[in-house]
């Protein structure tokens, strides 16, 4: 018998022994409409601390809108969002960011003319304590602070294995690497909850494998809770602990991957039935 084979990985809840998983974020009866168009209708689900939570659904199901609601970009007309046990008031995205919610975008949204290093450094801006004046002066405390931030950024560069492109302007990088840099910038915020909007869109198989590896590692090494939208079902089933399925703005399933996969409603949504 193979003495090295590891036991099944413990879920964070099991690991901390509390038994009852801690809920990081809860969405209760949220609805969002743009004029007459209902993007999200009466959706509730939760994200537990330390898990990888996938949000899936056919095109136009309201997945990205859901992420936008979570990170404070959209404000739901109805329902509440509870973040770490407190009901959240209406807020701006940067407030969400300073509370520990970071995200990447479906289309890469980096500063194309800046280097990888500078892009990731920009993710640290919320953590900079010295004011603008100090940073322009860049002496004493500001300099020391920058060194601290650079250290953190170098750890991320090391983690994502992008040392070779540290000084390359991101506009010159292939798409797969740009996605990785974007993940790096989100990680630079040291978020508690990381929202990934189609992190693997447009990638080839090898890049997808790499990205999956990074997502798992981020989750395990930093203990970051992750909510991701992804269309590649293989990836979703492999990565996520729990999956919530949306269709036409409504929640049609929620649970572990195997369960969701077997659900008739999900199969119908993906294969198409008349509505």
């Amino acid at each position, binding site marked *: 018998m*193979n*003495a*090295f084979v*590891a*036991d099944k990985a413990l879920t964070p809840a099991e690991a901390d022994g509390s038994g009852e998983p801690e809920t990081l974020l809860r969405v209760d009866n949220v609805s969002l409409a743009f004029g007459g168009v209902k993007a999200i209708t009466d959706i509730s689900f939760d994200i537990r601390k330390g898990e990888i939570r996938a949000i899936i659904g056919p095109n136009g199901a309201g997945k990205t809108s859901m992420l936008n609601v979570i990170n404070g970009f959209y404000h739901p007309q109805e329902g509440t969002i509870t973040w770490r046990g407190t009901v959240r008031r209406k807020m701006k995205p940067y407030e969400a960011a300073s509370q520990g919610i970071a995200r990447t975008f479906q289309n890469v949204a980096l500063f194309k003319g800046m280097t990888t290093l500078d892009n990731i450094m920009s993710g640290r801006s919320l953590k900079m304590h010295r004011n603008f004046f100090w940073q322009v002066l860049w002496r004493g405390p500001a300099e020391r602070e920058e060194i601290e931030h650079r250290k953190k950024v*170098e*750890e991320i560069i090391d983690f994502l294995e992008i*040392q*070779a492109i540290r000084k390359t302007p991101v506009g010159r990088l292939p798409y797969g690497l740009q996605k990785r840099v974007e993940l790096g910038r989100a990680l630079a915020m040291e978020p508690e909850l990381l929202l990934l909007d189609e992190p693997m869109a447009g990638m080839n198989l090898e890049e997808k494998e790499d990205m999956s590896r990074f997502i798992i590692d981020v989750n395990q*090494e930093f203990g970051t809770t992750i909510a991701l939208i992804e269309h590649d079902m293989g990836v979703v089933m492999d990565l996520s602990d729990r999956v919530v399925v949306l269709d036409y703005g409504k929640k049609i399933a929620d649970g572990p991957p195997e369960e969701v996969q077997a659900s008739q409603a999900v199969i119908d949504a993906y294969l198409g039935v008349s509505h």
Partner: protein
Amino acid sequence: MLQGKKRHMVGSASASPRGKDTFPKILLHNARVFGNRTAFREKDFGIWQSWTWSGVSEEIRAFSIGLQSLGLKAGDKIAIVGANRPRLYWAMVAAQAIGAVPVPVYADSVAEEMAYVLGHAEVAFAIVEDQEQVDKLLSMSDEVPSLKHVIYDEVRGLRDYDHTHLHSYASVQDKGRALQAQSASLKGEWEQGLATGKGSDIAVMLYTSGTTGRPKGVMLSFDNLVISGRNGNDFDHLDETEEVLAYLPMAWIGDHVFSLAQAFTAGYCVNCPESMDTIDVDRREIAPTYFFAPPRVFETMLTMIMVNMEDAGRTKRAMFDTFMDVARKVGEKILNGEKVALKDRLLYRLGEFFVYGPLKNRMGLTRMKVGYTAGEAIGPEIFQFYRSLGLNLKQLYGQTEASVYITLQPDGEIFGDTVGKPAPDVELKIAESGEVMYRSPGVFVGYFKNDEATASTKTPDGWVHTGDAGIIADNGHLKIIDRAKDVGRLTDGALFAPKYIENKLKFFPNIKEAVAFGHERDRVGVFVNIDLTAVGSWAERNNVNYASYQELAAHPDVYAMIESHVDQVNRDLAREPMMAGAQIRRFLILHKELDADDGELTRTQKVRRSFIAERYGPLIEALYDGSATKHVRTEVTYEDGRKGVLEATVEIRDMPLHDAGKSFQEAAE
């Protein structure tokens, strides 16, 4: 270190001085003598992290004691898997201190091959770089039943693994440190333990890839490596101030000697790059003083420079062209210390300031005292390019069984087509069969668990068969002509070395591939493949129109050009008494490019001689039946997998012979 040089003179094959005959002993010595000098660097988190010799000594001791507490004992084998990292080098010496034998293996080899090597070596421990290697090893635990513990350097991704037999490098070291803190005598005991090691003990086992059959485990003793390392250092006057970049596979004897044996014996600093993709940047930052690279690295650097120069502004390009002309004319002469006119010398100085200096800086070779290339033949133009910049690039010939060094080019005696003179303490001879044989203090102890192979490679009195055919030129330099098994004879008894002839042809940029025939025939015939890029750009410049490779290959002007190349090769061959009999008598330019899709080349772009002989049977016939043209039909496979037929009438040209004696005299004069 002047003292050191006096102590071990070049050519002293005797046991190493003052009991410094194993790497653990040398480590203690270096920690004493070089204490605060930097021994290792690794770029991590964007910064060069460094360790002094005394620091390294402490790291190795802690790890070694930790290994001992895990049950590693003398005679055990310990696999080292991963890219060049200080901790993996240290692990080797830490194992040696206990009497265990490190077995570095190629980290990127396929699982099956690695499993064979680890199983054959009966490794008890494995020290690996990261999760990827851990997974690989765990997957082969059935084939390697002897494996008891796996120790990894990079923690990432391994948290949730079962850690009964899996340990992090740091935890093993911590254990070693904790044990030392508990018992004050432990350090002394450990040092006493390593003092019992002898020069004749096995230091390392390196598996040779072996083009045929299973890899063989070459056992090298401390004496082999320590003496070879010292001789290498003395030969090129290397001391503790050198900087090297460790970037070639750790399982390869070259890296083992350059980054461990020579580094320890000289006390110089080994720099490990941040990752495999950052080597160019890292080399520029370190600027190694002693540098080794296979020819393809130099080729790639040269191509990069040329491509960048194409994009440069007009002034820069003009400067580059002007001064490169100067360098071509006098650069090598200046490097070799020959006489050069004052005007050229001044121009060269100017060139150094404007062009050569910045170029060398770009390549990270500004501080290079001596550089070597080996492994395969390097194109003379490439070799000359670097030398003309004032870089002391040389060739060496060696193999695992010799602890690298067999021959080296001494400073000032650089000839493009030879691999140099016997290294210090090496005896060289050519066997009846034309095979190169050597005897030296670096000669391996034997193949692990393979006495049969040992007996067929190493004679009872210590001579080793290299498997390469070669000749020793009048100036005492060795020239390698081919693999011994490929060398044949013409019917008149003249030596026929196909690869030697093909390489000579391929050094012309216009010739991409060549296949020579002649074994057991009355004369030599050659197939030539033109290089579409080089000949195509020539055609463009000379208003030669063509629609396809086939048409260009059959063009009379192209034939004339290739004919002049073949004639030049014949002239060169005529100058060498051993080779003069194998001049090319007839050649043809193939109507299609040799292609791996058609099975004519291997996937690594090596010619499959026997396959080609079969496929182009009628053309070979035509080479020998005297006909001037031959009509052929060849089936080809397109990239989408469809098959087609190529028809062509191929012209065959006769070549005049050059008089061996006469050209030899010409050359001598």
